[in-house]
């Protein structure tokens, strides 16, 4: 497991993001146990309370579940939830930015659509 805590975000949000990424990529399988607060805090030298706060964010988002006395586990369907949410965010995070940037570069809507088409074609050629 390789986490990277170097962004400017508050640490507990970084913890949540990193764990979410690990679930999304399948590093933590659904139903599998995730490392304990203490393990994470020791390994990355992060205050245990901060780690707990990050984990609790994912518990509230229905991605993790705490089983009394046994630890924290990835919930069934967690990956699906992440994908759905990221799809919703896709418009805000990528499309709006794309349009913004293309306006600055004087690219028309048609130009963008052509570029998108070209991207997909290239992808197909490669595979």
């Amino acid at each position, binding site marked *: 497991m390789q986490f990277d*805590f170097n*962004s*400017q*975000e*508050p*640490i*507990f*949000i970084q913890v949540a993001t990193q764990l979410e990424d690990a679930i999304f990529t399948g590093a933590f399988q659904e139903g599998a146990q995730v490392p304990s*607060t*203490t393990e994470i*805090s*020791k390994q*990355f*030298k*992060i*205050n*245990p*309370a*901060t780690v707990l*706060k990050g984990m609790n964010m994912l518990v509230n988002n229905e991605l993790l579940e705490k089983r009394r006395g046994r630890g924290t586990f990835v919930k069934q369907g967690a990956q699906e939830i992440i994908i759905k949410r990221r799809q919703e965010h896709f418009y805000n995070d990528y499309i709006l930015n794309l349009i*913004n940037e293309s306006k600055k570069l004087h690219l028309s809507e048609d130009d963008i659509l052509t570029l998108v088409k070209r991207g997909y074609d290239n992808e197909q050629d490669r595979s």
Partner: protein
Amino acid sequence: MSKIEVRHLAKRFKFSKQPLLSEVNFTLDENEIYGLFGENGAGKSTLMSIIADYNRRSAGEILFDGEEVHENDEALSEIYFMNQDDMYTKKDKVSQIFSFVESMYQGYDVALQAKLVKEFKLDVNQKLNSLSTGYQSIVKIIISLCVPCKFVLLDEPTLGLDARNREVFQRNLIETYSENPRTFVISTHIIDEIDRIISHVLLLQDGVIKMNGSIDDVSSKSYSISGPAEDVNSYIDGVKVLDEEQLGRYKTVHFMDQLPDREVPASVDIEKMKLQKLLVYIMDRGRL
């Protein structure tokens, strides 16, 4: 739950016009890690030394579970202060110093001490005064992590330590803290190094506690916003700005507040600010 309350604390040195501490108020709760920050000469060490009853105060009170700390054996045995002075007998061997401390504290963690000696690669058969400055600090660090005190005050613990030993210190601090939670107060100038470890930020400036908050609150409220000057200005109108830089029409402002409740202009970039940067801006301006 134990706690230390500092109330209306003041410290004025003879022959100096300005008091070093004019009105310090805060509470140290159990099982938290506090970062105590401030410029050189802000009075961090003095504040800690007064809490540990090393030094006299001019006014105010320090309460441990509601009881005055001054001359209070019970309270003082729960407060350990690692300072920059040489407090132990310098011509003693390190092993002798360790066994002295062990004799002073019931519940001193000998096992942890042995582990730390190994990890720091400390030679306990050396005399304290023949060790390098870094290793003299390491001896003090080891003791402060092993004493069974509820409140451990560390004044620049990593001063003079090399990169490896600094890491050993941080790792073991977190380890012993998660296994056996207690309160640490760490004063340091290398904020980047401990901003993940601490849970609370205390900023001492101009004789008062300028900032006192949980690290999450502080870091989720500190922003750097950049973009064309007019867009930035209209977006952050009404926000108390800490600092700003302008390069031609491109402007960056730093502030600590909620984001304004209005639409973000497309040309404006919002970034979070690291604690180190935030504190530097506050210290520079002397205001929040």
